[in-house]
């Protein structure tokens, strides 16, 4: 009969829509439920305790690794971090030197080598006029 398969197709998509509505509502309610639990003071206390314990373990692990690596005459995390700081400091000084050289070059009007002079756009744009509502 005509429409029978149409009906089953429509009911199949109805079922899917029903499922999606149910799922969205369930997700919302579960988020609300967990939000209440996670917002409780006891959870805050517990999670802070976890963070404290994590900090202690992490510090202890870091210190142990530093000692072991130093014993084997291998670079430690602190050594690499210090190296990184020194590199950053060198980069900053280079950037400062570059900036000074560029400023001096601009003053004596030498074009910097290896760069293309960019055409700057005109800075004259105005917003589109708003049409009046009155006729």
């Amino acid at each position, binding site marked *: *009969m*005509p429409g*029978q*398969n*149409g009906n089953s*197709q429509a009911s199949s998509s109805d079922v899917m829509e029903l499922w*999606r509505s149910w*799922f969205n509502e369930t*997700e919302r309610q*579960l*988020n609300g439920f*967990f*939000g209440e639990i*996670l*917002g409780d*003071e006891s*959870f*805050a*206390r517990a*999670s*802070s*305790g976890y*963070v*404290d314990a*994590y*900090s*202690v373990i*992490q*510090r202890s692990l*870091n210190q142990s690794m530093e000692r072991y690596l130093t014993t084997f005459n291998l670079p430690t*995390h602190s050594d*690499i*971090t*210090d190296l*990184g*700081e020194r590199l*950053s400091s060198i*980069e*900053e000084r280079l*950037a400062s030197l570059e900036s000074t050289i560029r400023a001096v070059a601009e003053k004596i009007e030498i074009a910097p080598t290896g760069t293309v002079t960019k055409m*700057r*756009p*005109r*800075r*004259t*744009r*105005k*917003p589109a006029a708003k049409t009046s509502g009155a006729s």
Partner: protein
Amino acid sequence: MVTARQPVETIIETAQEEVERTRERIKKGLDVLLARNEPPVGVTPKDVIYQRGTLKLYHYRPMSDEVYRVPIVFVMSLVSKPWILDLTFGQSFVQYLLAQGFDVFMIDWGVPRPEDKKLSFEDYVTDLMPDCFEHVQKATGEEDYSILGYCMGGIFGLMYAGAYPDAPLKNLACAATPVDMEGMGLFRKWTDKRFFDVDHLVDSIGNIPPDMMLRSFEMLRPMDRWGGYIRLLDNLWNEQFVYGFRVMYKWTNEQIPFPGEAYRQFTRDLMWENKLMKGTMTLNGRPVDTKAIKIPVLHAMAEHDHIAPFAATRPLTSIVGSEDTEDVILKGGHVSLVAGKNAMFRFWPRVADWLSQRSL
């Protein structure tokens, strides 16, 4: 006239459609599982005009030969990668603004390294930001600039404007920027000063690891990750849906470390002491006087923001001294406010229109 062939044709069509969808599901499922054919992100062409440490200052290439006089400088959050505002083809707020005729820059703080654990609010607001603005002035030949800050980027923008009220800052636009930390919901509860020892944490581990940041965001709505996977399964045949999902999933999961000192300050000065709201914030002894901010201020907020709740974002324009302020309250969440399909028709045109009147 009804024929017996019609139901058969309908069955064949339905079957063909299901076969096609199943084929797409398998193909896209494999793409997702194997991370194949990743959507490109941060696609708008740009030049790095300044670098310092991990910081990069981008100048996006103008899309027209006539632009508004006053450039826009995006100030990004420390919490996540900045390409949320330059998401992908056809979904880039940066590209939208360029097409509207704005000259756009972006401060990308980069991914903090272990030695960056010492970076504090003072470094960001009183050192790095002014440095970047000088380079923006050199690049544009204009003294004035506008700041557009998203989330914590808006906090930095507000602090900068309050610490330097005489700076040539023309406009301040913020999006989803929390100022009243008493309204920060679960984040405030979890960092309760009675239990949370921020000094112990920062002194032990330095930068806050990206995994810890990601889990704390996920705990705000624990079902979202699994709900997302189920919706993905339901829509795996839909190319557009899968593309959007993969882009947002990538951004959400690419968390970055939070610099230790900045985290300590965020917790102590903002979460615990609520200094910005109370007007007692200082940076290097310099007061951050938000009432001294007299420039136009726009603040866009999301009604259903679970990360920077409405209660925390609402008071921003009430703590500035400007007479030209505008609150824009839009439907959506923290991310959908600024990125995605909804943002294209709501937040983007509002901000562009507001800035166009004030960038002359």
